[in-house]
């Protein structure tokens, strides 16, 4: 009796097809018609094809245009090997130094209060808004023949400009923010509770750093190092200004690409370029993997 009354006072339950219509109406209100949807997707893909996929595809097709033998030949030339070696040495020096800087900066900024902190944060970001050419230029000004210490350096046989030290300095300048920018927000998010606990249990400062801090930020460190390394190996403008373009001596891979291209050795230029493109793809793959697998252990800031 009560049942029938209750039923009588309620509107009949909606039938499945009515529910579907209601859902369709909501979708139409906060979404787009399928045709527009398709059009927008197509427009986005067209844009990305023109500016992203086509340039990438072209690097590999041009590199292999004259066959695999020529491709391998171009990569194993004496000057090509020297360029690869120089690029590895440059990244091998500058990335660890910027890693040390990033760890120190993150420790100071994310764990302590002090006046001028936001100024320091801004200054760490500065290299991102300085033209790479200027990043190379400043070291030419300091260490070049016309500088204050230039004559003294050359009298003592110390070569910085047009040599490895200059290339490394310019690379460090350009890649300085990468690790710090990842670690500072990450360590700020994590807070100092675990470190304070370790200290109160009697751990020393270094023990706390090695056994608590570093394991907590290891994926963030890897993430920052990955991006830092990609930029260090691929940097062109800054290194080009300071290297002097001595073939087989001060040419990194990107500089060697330029030399070959300007000599109309297009296939060889693209063969070298494909090495760097491959590095970029591997970097992107690893980066995507880290973001997917360890999202919670990375900073949620903007990716660079």
């Amino acid at each position, binding site marked *: 009796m009560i049942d029938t009354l209750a039923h009588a006072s309620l509107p009949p339950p909606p039938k499945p097809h009515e529910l579907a219509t209601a859902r369709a109406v909501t979708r139409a209100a*906060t979404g787009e018609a399928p045709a527009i949807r398709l059009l927008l997707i197509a427009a986005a893909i067209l844009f*990305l094809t023109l500016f992203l996929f086509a340039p990438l595809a072209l690097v590999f097709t041009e590199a292999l245009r004259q066959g695999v033998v020529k491709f391998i030949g171009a990569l194993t030339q004496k000057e090509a090997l020297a360029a690869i070696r120089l690029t590895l040495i440059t990244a091998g020096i500058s990335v660890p130094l910027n890693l040390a800087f990033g760890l120190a900066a993150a420790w100071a900024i994310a764990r302590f209060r002090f006046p001028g902190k936001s100024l*320091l944060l801004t200054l760490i970001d500065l290299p991102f808004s*300085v033209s790479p050419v200027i990043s190379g230029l400043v070291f*030419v000004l300091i260490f070049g023949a016309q500088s204050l210490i230039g004559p003294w350096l050359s009298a003592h046989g110390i070569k910085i400009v047009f040599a490895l030290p200059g290339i490394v300095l310019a690379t460090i300048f350009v890649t300085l923010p990468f690790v710090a920018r990842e670690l500072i927000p990450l360590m700020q998010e994590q807070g100092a509770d675990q470190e*304070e606990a370790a200290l109160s249990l009697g751990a020393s400062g270094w023990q706390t750093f090695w056994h608590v801090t570093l394991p907590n930020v290891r994926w963030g460190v890897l993430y920052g190092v990955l991006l830092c390394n990609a930029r260090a190996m*691929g940097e062109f403008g800054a290194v080009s200004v300071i290297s002097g373009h001595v073939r087989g001596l001060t040419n990194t891979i990107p500089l060697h690409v330029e030399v070959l291209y300007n000599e109309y050795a297009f296939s060889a230029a693209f063969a070298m*370029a494909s090495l760097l493109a491959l*590095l970029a793809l591997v970097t992107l793959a690893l980066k995507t993997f880290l973001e997917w697998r360890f999202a919670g252990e990375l900073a949620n800031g903007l990716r660079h």
Partner: protein
Amino acid sequence: MTDTTFEAAQKRGRHRRPRNVLPGFGPALGFTTAYLSLIVLIPLAVLFGWSLSGGVAAFIELATRERTLAALRLSFGGAAIAAGINMVFGLLVAWVLSRYSFPGRKLIDAMVDLPFALPTAVAGISLATLYGPKGWIGGFLADYGIKVAFTPLGVIVALTFVGLPFVVRTVQPVLEDLDRQYEEAAATLGAGRLQTVRHVLLPALFPSLLTGFAMALARGIGEYGSVIFIAGNLPMRSEIAPLLIVIKLEEFDYRGATVVAATMLILSFLMLLAVNLLQAWTRRHSA
């Protein structure tokens, strides 16, 4: 008013707490500032010193030479146009990636960061070939009488490539976090889809669009590697400011080079300041 809240009281309490127990502040901050000073700050100070070594009048004279002005106009104008293109298409890409699902979406999402990872010289020679008169795209456009490579248009193409990820990466997270309820409410109140996009979505996305624009702009102004291959580098026409620095340096005109560099730095600083002020203004007015 907020001072009476529990959180504020807690915060004040935290202020009174004894100093941080963590060790290593001195060495960490010391190393950070020393490293930053040696690598970035002192070198930039030396640059400004060089640029002013002939006095302010000489600086202004060098900075306002016709060729310098043309190069600055191209670098700043080209970067602004490219950042504008990226604002429109970056929004489109962010929209498509966060709202729709289609095959290959994840791959495309990951590939958007390619310009961050691909060395500029590689992008440069590839774009120059692609948009050159015999390239896949350049050849097609040449049939319609459009020349891209070796013209100012080429500069814009290269800067669009370089700045592509910025707007996408700033807008995408905002779009994903945006509560659909606002759109539903607008629709319930009788707004058409376009009206909802214009009056509900765009205002909410505007600050992030502006951030992306500013970052793409800052990156484009200083860009060198990807541009010089496609630009043609004709003085007064397709010569960007960073290239002018390199040319002056090769002529051993150090003061000229530093004046162009210092002018670039000052102008980009003023531009970013303006964008920041605009952003603060929009945030105040949309709140």
